[in-house]
């Protein structure tokens, strides 16, 4: 994911994918998401709670210690 192209993307043109088997539930993505898109579920795995709020800043992807988050451009 190149940050350059990210700015050009429309809001609805990306998709956040979370690999549950890699996620260790540290909560870093949840805490630092500027739009509060993410949350931890009852199994302490990250989930996308409010996908519409996501503005694809990509910080969750970059700060994930488990490399469990991937934002793909549709």
């Amino acid at each position: 994911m190149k940050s350059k192209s990210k700015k050009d993307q429309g809001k609805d043109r990306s998709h956040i994918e979370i690999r549950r088997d890699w996620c260790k539930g540290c909560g870093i993505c949840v805490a630092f998401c500027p739009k509060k898109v993410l949350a931890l579920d009852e199994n302490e795995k990250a989930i996308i709670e409010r996908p519409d709020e996501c503005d694809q800043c990509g910080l969750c992807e970059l700060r994930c210690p488990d490399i469990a988050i991937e934002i793909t451009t549709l």
Partner: protein
Amino acid sequence: MAVRDYIRERFMPHIWCAGCGHGIVMNNLIRAIEVLGLKKNDIVMVSGIGCSARISGYLDFHTLHTLHGRALAFATGVKLGRPDLHIIVPMGDGDATAIGGNHFIHAARRNIDITAVIMNNHIYGMTGGQYSPLSVYGRMATTAPFGNIDQAFDIVGLAQSAGASFVARTTSYHATSMIKIFQKAITHKGFSVVEVLSQCPTYYGRKNRLGDAVEMMEFFKKNTTPLGSAAKEKNPDLIERGIFVQEDRPEYCAEYKKIIKKAMGEQ
């Protein structure tokens, strides 16, 4: 290539604890390499022993997992054998500044084209929370039950005075600038050192009541400032981050090529 194309997926999830800063370092190191468009066959990752050293096993490069503290010595041999390859050495507190301290200053002094990424989490994680040469004075560790009376090394100062021609500091919180710094460090011709302040919530955080990974990253956010900022003047306790040294200096392998020319001419 996608980030996951650089990972040996069969070993994931990795061994690091939840919230460990080392995962963030690995994450952004891959991204820097991806942006640079380097070929996987052109990268050798050499690591020592410790939590940080485990990075090499997860990445799909030529990987050499060596002895505690000796990664830079092994890396020196690899680099001189194949000067065209990119050599990246992830290190922790012990590898870089304790058992491997001598190799660190000498690799810096030679200015050999190797990138050392030092994950400073102020503690020995793999063996369970003993103090390191990077533990802050007064902090607790399993081997400092009454508080640490050792003074910590300043990696940036150490690298700078030892002769590294690229020296930078960043934190696990500052992911985007970390990627840029890694890019510059890897492409720099000479010995490059990137100190990344990294959280160990399991030992350093818990022993010292510093909170969880998020709180420790908040600390990096609040207590660091870009190099040369006005904030530092107001609050000298702030830790500076950014690129401290970036200079063109004679690189070791290039210098040795000249030696070969001289030696062959003299024959």
